[in-house]
């Protein structure tokens, strides 16, 4: 009985965190959009289209670096410790990460088309992100297609770890390839000198996306926890 109460408390704690973070994240998103559309200056070289940068870059930061790095760490911890909760965190983060990676893949070519006239130019960053999207896909497929769900979780962890180890090399090789065969580069987030307003908007974007992401992950984690507890209770009820 005591463990039930503790689980309930932990569960509601996570729920409060999830709700709080998400609401904060949404508020920051509203702020961001106001800044993007009404406040920040238009960038000189690329024009209005450049504003997509404030959506694209934070999404990349969250979906690619933050999310996938976390997935890899959680996966390694899960294999080492065998604690299911670490794996629950991993899948929650992976789902959020995939969503944000998809946003990157949608906004990137859009920017390219509007700024340069072509959707896809094998830009190294976008290409790496595309490959990462497939690694995420592999993560979810192996998770779901095993007979024994625990084995699926372990498989997914292996995919996460190997993917994270390979991704830097993928990015390196793709960038190197481009250096040999120059083509118009779409994304140069660091290159355009950012005046204080732009920097501020970018920061807002990073913050908004990160907070929203954490909120969504918290919700997803809570959901996974609940599902697990429900499974546990059903099993115990069936056994007695």
């Amino acid at each position, binding site marked *: 009985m005591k463990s039930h109460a503790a689980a309930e408390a932990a569960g509601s704690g996570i729920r409060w965190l999830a709700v709080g973070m998400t609401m904060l994240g949404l508020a920051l998103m509203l702020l961001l959009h106001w800044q993007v559309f009404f406040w920040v200056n238009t960038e000189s070289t690329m024009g209005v289209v450049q504003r997509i940068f404030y959506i694209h870059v934070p999404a990349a930061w969250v979906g690619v670096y933050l999310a996938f790095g976390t997935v890899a760490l959680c996966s390694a911890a899960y294999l080492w410790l065998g604690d299911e909760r670490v794996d629950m965190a991993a899948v929650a983060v992976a789902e959020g990460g995939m969503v944000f990676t998809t946003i990157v893949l949608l906004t990137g070519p859009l920017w390219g088309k509007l700024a340069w006239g072509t959707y896809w130019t094998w830009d190294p960053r976008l290409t790496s992100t595309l490959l990462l999207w497939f690694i995420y896909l592999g993560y979810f497929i192996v998770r779901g297609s095993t007979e024994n*769900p625990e084995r699926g979780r372990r498989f997914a962890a292996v995919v996460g770890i190997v993917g994270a180890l390979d991704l830097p090399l993928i990015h390196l090789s793709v960038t190197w390839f481009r250096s040999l065969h120059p083509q118009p580069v779409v994304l140069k987030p660091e290159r355009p000198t950012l005046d204080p307003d732009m920097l501020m908007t970018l920061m807002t974007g990073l913050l908004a996306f990160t907070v929203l992401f954490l909120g969504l992950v918290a919700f997803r984690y809570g959901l996974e926890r609940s599902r697990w507890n429900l*499974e546990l209770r*059903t*099993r115990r009820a*069936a*056994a007695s």
Partner: protein
Amino acid sequence: MSFPGEAEAPPLLDAQGLVREFAGIAAVDGVDVSLPSGGFLVVFGPNGAGKTSLLRMLGGGLRPTRGEVWLGGERIEAGSPRGRERVGVLSHQTFLYGHLTARENLRFYGRLFGLSDLDRRLQHRLGEVGLLERADDLASTFSRGMRQRLGLARTLLHDPDLVLLDEPYTGLDPHAATVLRTVLETLRDGRRTVILVTHNLTQGLELADRVAIQARGRFAWEGRSTDVQARDFEGFYRETVDRIEGLR
């Protein structure tokens, strides 16, 4: 599983509270197994009683949901190669490679176990199961009975302390069954611990010194073979199983 009036020999095999769940259903639901060196336990039970899962856990091939397996002071864990050289398992699956000859199959396993004097051991085991003349034929050319005999040779190749046999008589022709029976007799030498799962009540009782009836993941009854009257056992077995199965 403790037998009243037994001398306190330390158990070679000790597993308490073994549970294994598959998707929420308990295939094995709290089984204790404790056997001294030289013990020969025969487990009877209907299909679906969880006998195979129990055996697999004892052999380290399946991770228990709860409970641990200890063999002579060493923990047998699924996923760890420790202690494996002391366990031999024979199941419906023979673990043989069709494209290899009988001798090559045994040699492969012998190398994995790091056995010395391998060729002599191969000869001995092949002779024991009566496969010496076919030793250099591909395993894919063997009949079911011959494969099982080869599997038995493989099981005993490394001289394991614990031998686990999962319904080895299944699908055997009379000749192969006789060979199996003869080899099983030699296992009752007091040095080895054997657990045999079988449907064959008569054969099982002849070999056993301990008997258990497993149904619905639990031992419904356990006792020494001396407690059992072979003539009445079939009736008793049916009665016990019906009682457990009828509970749902």
